[in-house]
């Protein structure tokens, strides 16, 4: 075995810095949770626009989906962090700066909102009209029908696809180090600059990400599927 390979598999260095690396990982999780909330709520909003009765609303919804679904998250992140504050600054004639964490949440949240919007839209349109007729016939308001009849079914239908999206989203949180959010990758590079030993640190980071995402998605799939199957048409 070559020395380089041995070095790359020796994870004691990774373990040595576990405190700072764990702190970074917590940032990944925080960015993920906040961006996921943004993606879900903005995505639902865009989906409702896309199925609105009025065509200007539908146009706005479609533009939203097309713009954000077709923008690379890497570029969106840089654009939101460096260009968007400039534009806002010009508009309100004041210097604006985004905290890196804020930029990361906005960029990832909006990019993935495009995907979630399509999932929501397809899920909503797949619900039989009769389900809605039944709700209306009992005097349920459109709002009540959305929250009690449509969305619970949409969530069940979307779950497998949503899980995939969440996995890619969590992986995408690794690029936030680019704009100096102190996440796991950012801290790994800091340690590498000190220790000059990239191999064990990168390997450790890879294994950490893999284990975390793998275990979480297996868990969600296991419990989610059982819940989904018992209560779907």
């Amino acid at each position, binding site marked *: 075995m070559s020395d380089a390979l041995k070095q790359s598999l020796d994870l004691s260095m990774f373990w040595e810095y576990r405190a700072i690396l764990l702190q970074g990982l917590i940032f990944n999780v925080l960015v993920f949770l906040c961006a996921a909330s943004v993606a879900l709520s903005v995505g639902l909003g865009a989906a409702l626009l896309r199925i609105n009765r009025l065509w200007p609303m539908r146009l706005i919804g479609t533009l939203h989906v097309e713009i954000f679904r077709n923008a690379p998250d890497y570029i969106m992140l840089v654009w939101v962090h460096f260009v968007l504050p400039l534009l806002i600054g010009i508009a309100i004639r004041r210097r604006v700066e985004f905290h890196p964490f804020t930029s990361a949440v906005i960029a990832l949240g909006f990019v993935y909102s495009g995907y979630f919007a399509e999932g929501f839209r397809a899920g909503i349109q797949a619900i039989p009209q009769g389900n809605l*007729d039944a709700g209306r*016939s*009992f*005097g349920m308001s459109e709002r009540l029908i959305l929250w009690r009849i449509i969305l619970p*079914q949409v969530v069940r239908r979307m779950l497998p696809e949503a899980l995939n999206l969440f996995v890619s989203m969590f992986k995408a949180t690794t690029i936030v180090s680019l704009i100096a959010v102190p996440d796991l990758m950012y801290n790994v590079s800091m340690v590498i600059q000190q220790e000059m030993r990239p191999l064990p640190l990168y390997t450790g980071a890879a294994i950490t990400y893999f284990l975390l995402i793998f275990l979480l998605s297996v868990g969600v799939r296991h419990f989610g599927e059982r819940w989904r199957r018992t209560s779907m*048409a």
Partner: protein
Amino acid sequence: MSIARAARESAPIFMSQVLSQVPNEAPSQVLSEVPSIRVAGIHKRFGPLEVLRGVSFDVPRGSVVSVIGASGSGKSTLLRCVNHLEPPDAGEIYIEGEPLGARVDARGNRKARSLAEINAMRRELGVVFQQFNLWPHMTVLGNVIEAPIRVRKLPRKEAVAYGEECLRRVRMIDKANEYPARLSGGQQQRAAIARALAMRPKAMLFDEATSSLDPELTDEVLGVMRELAADGTTMIVVTHEMSFAREVSDRVIFLHQGLVEEEGPPGDVFGAPKSERLQQFLSKYRKQ
């Protein structure tokens, strides 16, 4: 067109106006004369197709009115108009004298109701659909208590107690915790009837409730409907089950091309049909 029908269509009596003119001391006598549901001159058009061309009839409280007619005669559209799932283009529905789609103020001016007001009126009518339309993500009991809790704002405990009573009535209490996907069509339809009953509606509307069921499953649903009729439930029943209509109804309405072609007590309509169209329609069923 008969003179009586022409008169009914052109001048429906607005019961709320009648009521407001009646002195306060004798409301019970007047109320008993107010039909539970009055269908007055309903027109409905889908693009160039005029599906309903002025349909009027009364459903007195505690009575069963069956609507029969060939496919495409407007039966289902009529029922959907009765609770404004399809707002009628002209005409009005009255529920115990109150117009469903409009309000009449003290001066007698009509004002269209908002969607929220129509929703509030709709809950007085329990609808049973051809395709059951149970909500698949809720258990049978969940389906039954949903609207009483969310719309009627009943406390959960009360809704469950009454929901279970309704499920007992349709003999579905042992399936209360099942999801609809695990039930047969007949069981789903009985659960849907319980769901409608749980709202304590003033009247029940059945839209071809047995048409999508296998023949061996229709009887269990018709049995439940028969019991409801015997208990004095006000019902409008759109149906293809002629023997059921004959046996259970107080009045039968034959719809043809969006108009009431003939109506009367079941003995007359089935025993001595006057119009040629009804005779033709019934002979098709006799052959079967």
